[in-house]
């Protein structure tokens, strides 16, 4: 708690000192699935500044630790596509087969993880060579992936097992499985690496997991068909696809506090590293929304390509 107060004070100093841009994301990269493209959105202007052709109906996205490269899954062509985020060009692509969708990058190592929902495995990929190093067995149809900030654990939302797998990255094996609500899809780990939050599309709730004890702390009801979760300002935000809304919930009490009317099929969602803003990809409306996690108002909107998914980490 004391540490939290100190962090808040630092954030406040940064914010009022006009230095917040140092900790804020500059761009959002949305995978536009029907359009087959990647949109680059300048977040200070909330304007799309570039579009890159990806192909294969891109959906999942992860960024390298230095955020100069984006790794994208294209489920229709069963590919992993690497994009240089600085020059905004596709640099390499490799066919993985199966059903690649969920993707995450290691926070320090040149290593990428791709969930294959058909083989029920997570592929470990060397980011330097794009070669598959090994495949780790998890539950049925792994979907969202997330890595703890210390780089020790990889968590997968095993959609058809109604559970989360906890994988020891060094040992390359699953060390635990924690039950969730029905059909967990997106998964988000907090900045301290303490908790994981899954969006459960069939039971319309978020499961909160204590990673160290591998146990469920609780669940929070959401709107209909939640897709993914973001965390900012002591609050959780779930994108409710069928509700067209964002459910806001209190991370301490684990109760919903507000429903924000958002857009048609809100999907990918991520908080700026500074916690200043939350960004939401709206699949139905072809826009990226910016939310203020304090006022809970939509503060900006940028047009992107057709059908943005942005499933994963898409802010750089």
């Amino acid at each position: 708690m004391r540490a939290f107060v100190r962090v808040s004070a630092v954030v406040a100093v940064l914010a009022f000192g006009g230095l917040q841009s140092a900790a804020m994301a500059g761009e959002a990269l949305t995978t536009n699935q029907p359009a087959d493209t990647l949109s680059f959105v300048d977040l200070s202007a909330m304007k799309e500044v570039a579009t890159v052709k990806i192909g294969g109906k891109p959906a999942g996205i992860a960024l390298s630790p230095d955020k100069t490269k984006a790794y994208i899954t294209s489920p229709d062509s069963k590919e992993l596509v690497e994009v240089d985020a600085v020059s905004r060009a596709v640099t390499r692509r490799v066919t993985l087969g199966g059903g690649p969708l969920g993707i995450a990058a290691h926070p320090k190592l040149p290593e990428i993880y791709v969930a294959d929902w058909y083989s029920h495995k997570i592929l470990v990929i060397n980011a330097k060579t794009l070669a598959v190093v090994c495949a780790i067995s998890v539950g049925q149809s792994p979907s969202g992936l997330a890595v703890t900030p210390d780089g020790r654990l990889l968590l997968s939302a095993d959609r058809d097992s109604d559970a989360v797998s906890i994988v020891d990255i060094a040992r390359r094996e699953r060390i635990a499985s924690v039950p969730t609500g029905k059909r967990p899809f997106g998964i988000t780990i907090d900045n301290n690496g303490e908790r994981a939050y899954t969006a459960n599309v069939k039971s319309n709730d978020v499961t909160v997991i204590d990673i160290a004890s591998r146990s469920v702390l609780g669940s929070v009801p959401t709107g209909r068909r939640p897709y993914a979760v973001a965390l900012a300002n002591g609050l959780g935000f779930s994108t409710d696809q069928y509700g067209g809304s964002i459910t806001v919930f209190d991370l301490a009490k684990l109760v919903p506090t507000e429903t924000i009317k958002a857009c048609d099929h809100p999907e990918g969602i991520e908080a700026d590293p500074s916690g200043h803003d939350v960004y939401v990809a709206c699949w139905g409306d072809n826009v990226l929304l910016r939310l203020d996690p304090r006022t809970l108002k939509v503060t900006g909107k940028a047009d992107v390509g057709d059908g943005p998914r942005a499933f994963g980490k898409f802010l750089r």
Partner: protein
Amino acid sequence: MLKRLAIAAAILGSFPIMAWAHGPSRQKVTESVEINAPADKVWAVVGNFQDLSWVPAVAKTEGTGDNKPASGSNNDGAKRTITLKSGGVIEEMLDEYDAKEMTYSYEITKVDVKVLPVNDYSSHITVTANGADKSTLEWKGAFYRGFMNNDPPPELNDEASKKAVTDLYKSTLEAVKAKIEGGK
């Protein structure tokens, strides 16, 4: 063991809504029609979730819950069972309803892919006024194809699902326009 799996797969295959899994990518269809009538007149025809008589393919609508949408984690919203003229049956649930904005959204909770080759289908109906005596009726759908695994048969692939929904929307919107403008 293999045989048992094959039987299980065959059983699951005949109940696609149970074998819940994503196809590779969600499809999107949006169709609209301009109608020479005020928005409230169009809303009066299409705005009741319990009355789908404006869709020519529909023989009968039976439901509960009026126009009350589902809330939060509860599946307590308005429901309807649609019997098609072809004999097929579709079950649906209301997700959002806003009479003031003249819009609502709903989802299919049960359908055979032989009736409509889609999975995880959700939809929006919106009426927008274009001045005092013209309006636009928009029908928007989001869904996965009928076959939820890799390498689908042609009748259940992305194109087939998109064509089925597009044809339904186009023919229905033209029929609504003709009905309202014809004063019927």
